[in-house]
């Protein structure tokens, strides 16, 4: 398995980026998902939507070019790309809930065998609130969870059944971690790819949920 956490996050971001198709409308969550923007494949143009009310968001501005009224959903300064549009929160979630966002990439605390995601609270410990996550998971055309495979204490985040409060009963479509790519199918969790420097045994060891393992499982097509 990949030992360096930073490399692990980069691998996740690079692999998720390969899921983006030309012309996609994409919403990236805070944390690892944000990194995905750095690895869009050449020749692919995507449009980033941010739930605070913008489509066509560009990267952070050069120092001195920050504008207080142009921020992302984490409150950080961003820029406009040509063709950007600003709108109110109801319209922003109209895009999200209405299925007009092609892909959302979100962080996760747990995903279970049914593809259910928990990512917004740990009762009695951490209650940041769901923000836009529940609408994003419920409404986006495709939901990708980008997260580390295990917690700091070694516990698997891919579990038989979520013990944390669910974000939505809508199944996620794909799970990308620092150890594997897992597709949520009608029959269960299908192991699609294994991360570089990682063995199948490691994946199985650190995955609490049952996995459907094909005879051949390729390595993630990402460079380290």
């Amino acid at each position, binding site marked *: 398995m990949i030992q360096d956490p930073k490399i692990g996050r980069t691998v996740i971001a690079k692999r998720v980026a390969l899921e983006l198709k030309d012309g996609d409308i994409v919403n990236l969550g805070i944390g690892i998902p944000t990194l995905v923007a750095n690895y869009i494949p050449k020749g692919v143009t995507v449009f980033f939507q941010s739930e605070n009310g913008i489509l066509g968001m560009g990267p952070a501005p050069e120092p001195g070019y920050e504008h207080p009224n142009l921020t992302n959903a984490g409150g950080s300064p961003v820029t406009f790309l040509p063709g*950007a549009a600003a709108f109110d929160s109801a319209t922003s979630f109209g895009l999200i809930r209405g299925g007009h966002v092609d892909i959302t990439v979100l962080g996760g605390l747990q995903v279970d065998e049914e593809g259910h995601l928990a990512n917004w609270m740990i009762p009695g410990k951490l209650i940041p609130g769901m923000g836009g996550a529940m609408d994003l998971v419920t409404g986006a055309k495709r939901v990708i969870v980008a997260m580390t495979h295990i917690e700091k204490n070694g516990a698997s985040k891919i579990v038989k059944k979520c013990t944390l409060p669910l974000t939505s009963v809508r199944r996620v479509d794909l799970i990308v971690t620092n150890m594997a790519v897992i597709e949520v199918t009608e029959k269960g969790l299908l192991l699609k790819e294994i991360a570089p420097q990682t063995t199948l045994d490691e994946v199985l060891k650190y995955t609490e949920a049952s996995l459907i393992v094909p005879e051949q499982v390729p390595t993630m097509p990402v460079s380290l």
Partner: protein
Amino acid sequence: MKNKLISVEQAIEMIPDGAVLMIGGFLGDGTPELLVDGLIKAGKKNLTVIANDTAFPDRGIGKLIANKLVKKVIVSHIGTNPETQKQMIEGTLEVELVPQGTLAERVRAGGFGLGGILTPTGVGTVVENGKQKITINGKEFLVETALKADFALIKAKKADFLGNLVFNYTARNFNPLMAFAGNVTIVEVDELVPVGGIDPNEVHVPHAVVDYIVRGNAK
């Protein structure tokens, strides 16, 4: 990246007989006339049209009625088009009347991923027939369900090549709402500008919901 710009003919080719269409406009103001004319020229049949009204026999949506392309309309008003009333009485055209504000919200709900809305409008009238009612804090509301369409045919004043839209005055009406609610949304525009040519604050509809752009006849 996909070029959204197509001809009227290409737009019309996509639309099968029997399609459910949302068409923008208020008594013809803000209706995509070239697309309407294209439907007539192609002789489409058995269309269902969701729109504010059926305009006039020689204008906007009214032309579709006069040419007998439509089997059903879901509208708030048909009073300006005698042809609509005639076909309704003859039994060749089904007319579902919806209060205008409710129609706007049902279209919006469809495009915004809502199941519907709760409105006080229509409670205690014939409009409530067959509908669920919900009481909130002692006040009754009708459950009015979302509307979607196979195609939304809308009219904008201006678009960039991505499909960001700006509407003009009272030609806005149902157009921005329908833009979200069409499975395929086709916009007829009078002015096409380069990407980046519209102030982000002034975009009325973001390009994410626009599938195709057709050049209109500027007036």
